[in-house]
């Protein structure tokens, strides 16, 4: 998955598990950028009576590098606080929740937002209400109104939302983790089965979303709204992270844990699938604890990705060119280094760049001078849509197909014209084979659709 349960330690800590990070110029307000970080992967909608929520003991961060040094120049921080109206009931709610201050809603969560930039810091909002989880038609009969009321416009100009949403990420988990099967190509697998149709297990699951819509001028290095895509100041590096206190002391009387010491990062996410697919399992926890500026340690995994070498083994004879390229000690994946670690420099894709300098760092790189596409392609830049991944990442971008094909060699010719892409890489079946259905997304902030309610999901 993009980064759902991607590393050994964080898989034990869902509320701190940054599962997806998105960053894009807001389609309904191109003067702003929306950044989304998702947590609590694989939420089953009926998961009560203590429905899913953020961790009160977790510091959630969104980092922005605006000068290309892979260090954060701006950090938005979110911290949560859960309250109970009535400790003498087992119920999450004691009647329909008709508003965010409904007396029927027992277990509520609030949050604060602060920002650090240029050595200064400030609180932007406090006691901001999250919406409840989507329980069902009796408890949350008008869920969209609750979610809309939980979009907060801060006095400083940002919009924020924190709460449950529909998980927009899509991939055939069951197949991909069964020795990298693609059901449409199962008959060509090393352990063959009959071809079938890909399945999207995430289409009935929810996620917890932290979303912020920020005026572009607040993010750029000089406070401008860039219009030249080839200008260095047009590119932002963006990633999310979650931290816990260094020490947690558990109260012996069941009053939870108390923290001591500095915040220590336990999860981060820039590019989708980086830690999941590129970094080997023995290094994944370390990657989560480090910052993008430290990613030179992981560049070797990008230069020789394990999956590129496995494809021709798992699909015997189907990927001879990428197998040979990967095995050649004189070749490294400069294309993947550009996409994932440095950004794409000018001159590779006409009229486009999202280069942040030679320091290898895993960040989403968003060129804010590229306007939203009027007819977006889920395949983004490789399909001629420069407003999509790897120029930032939109909620509907098919990052599985894009990265699968890139790792399989589709993007090598951009930097090595002598390379011939294996024909199988461009057949339609070599993809996620999934198209998210209606309701997965919405056209306005926070852009991820209404979460599935627990009464109706699963439906049988």
């Amino acid at each position, binding site marked *: 998955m993009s980064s759902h349960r991607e590393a050994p330690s964080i898989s034990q800590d869902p509320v701190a598990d940054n599962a997806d990070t998105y960053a894009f110029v807001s389609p309904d307000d191109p003067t702003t950028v929306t950044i989304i970080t998702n947590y609590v992967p694989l939420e089953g909608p009926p998961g009560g009576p203590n429905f899913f929520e953020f961790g009160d003991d977790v510091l959630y961060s969104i980092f922005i590098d605006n000068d290309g040094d892979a260090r954060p120049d701006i950090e938005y921080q979110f911290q949560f606080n859960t309250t109970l109206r009535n400790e003498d009931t087992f119920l999450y709610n004691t009647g329909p929740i008709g508003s965010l201050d409904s007396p029927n809603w027992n277990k509520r969560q609030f949050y604060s937002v602060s920002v650090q930039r240029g050595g200064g810091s400030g609180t932007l909002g406090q006691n901001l209400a999250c919406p409840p989880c989507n329980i069902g038609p009796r408890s949350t009969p008008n869920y969209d109104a609750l979610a809309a009321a939980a979009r907060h416009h801060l006095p400083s100009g940002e919009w924020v939302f924190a709460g449950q949403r529909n998980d927009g990420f899509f991939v055939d988990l069951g197949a991909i983790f069964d020795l990298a099967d693609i059901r449409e190509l199962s008959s060509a697998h090393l352990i063959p089965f009959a071809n079938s149709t890909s399945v999207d297990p995430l289409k009935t699951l929810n996620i917890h979303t932290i979303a912020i819509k920020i005026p572009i001028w607040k993010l750029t290095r000089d406070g401008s709204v860039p219009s030249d895509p080839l200008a260095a100041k047009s590119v932002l590096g963006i990633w999310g992270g979650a931290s816990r206190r260094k020490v947690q002391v558990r109260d012996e009387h069941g009053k939870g844990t108390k923290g*001591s010491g500095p915040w220590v990062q336990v999860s981060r996410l820039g590019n989708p699938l980086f830690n999941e697919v590129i970094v080997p399992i023995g290094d994944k926890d370390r990657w989560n604890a480090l910052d993008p500026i430290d990613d030179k340690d992981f560049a070797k995994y990008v230069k020789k990705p394990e999956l590129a070498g496995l494809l021709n083994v798992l699909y015997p004879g189907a990927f001879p060119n990428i197998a040979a390229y990967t095995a050649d000690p004189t070749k490294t994946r400069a294309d993947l280094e550009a996409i994932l670690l440095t950004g794409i420099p000018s001159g590779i894709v006409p009229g486009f760049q999202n280069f942040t300098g030679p320091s290898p760092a895993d960040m989403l790189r968003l060129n804010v001078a590229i306007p939203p596409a009027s007819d977006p392609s889920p395949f983004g830049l490789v399909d001629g849509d420069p407003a999509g991944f790897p120029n930032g990442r939109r909620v509907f971008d098919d990052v599985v197909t894009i990265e699968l094909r890139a790792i399989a060699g589709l993007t090598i010719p951009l930097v090595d014209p002598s390379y011939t892409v294996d024909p199988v890489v461009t057949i339609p079946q070599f993809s996620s084979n999934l198209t998210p259905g209606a309701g997965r997304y919405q056209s306005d902030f926070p852009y991820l659709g209404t979460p599935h309610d627990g009464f109706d999901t699963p439906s049988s």
Partner: protein
Amino acid sequence: MERLSRRSFVKIAGAATGAAALAAAPPVARAAVGGDAEHGEKINPTTGVPDEPLVAYVRDAKRGEVTVTAGLTEHTYRDRALVKRLLRAARKGE
């Protein structure tokens, strides 16, 4: 007492608020283990865990390194006497 520097990135922003705790941490840590472990008294806790516990842990007994966390700060000291007292206190709990 020699302080070994340990500090992490953004969290430097919390340094201003943590400065007082930083300076106060070593003596407080000593108090936490009874000041003089020779006369320390093993007791049952009288309260729950405080909201902001101050924690001292021996990082490397041979080197006499002890780490103290308090508030949003963490510092490691070389204090062989404190490490010795903590180890004594730990043995008393066995």
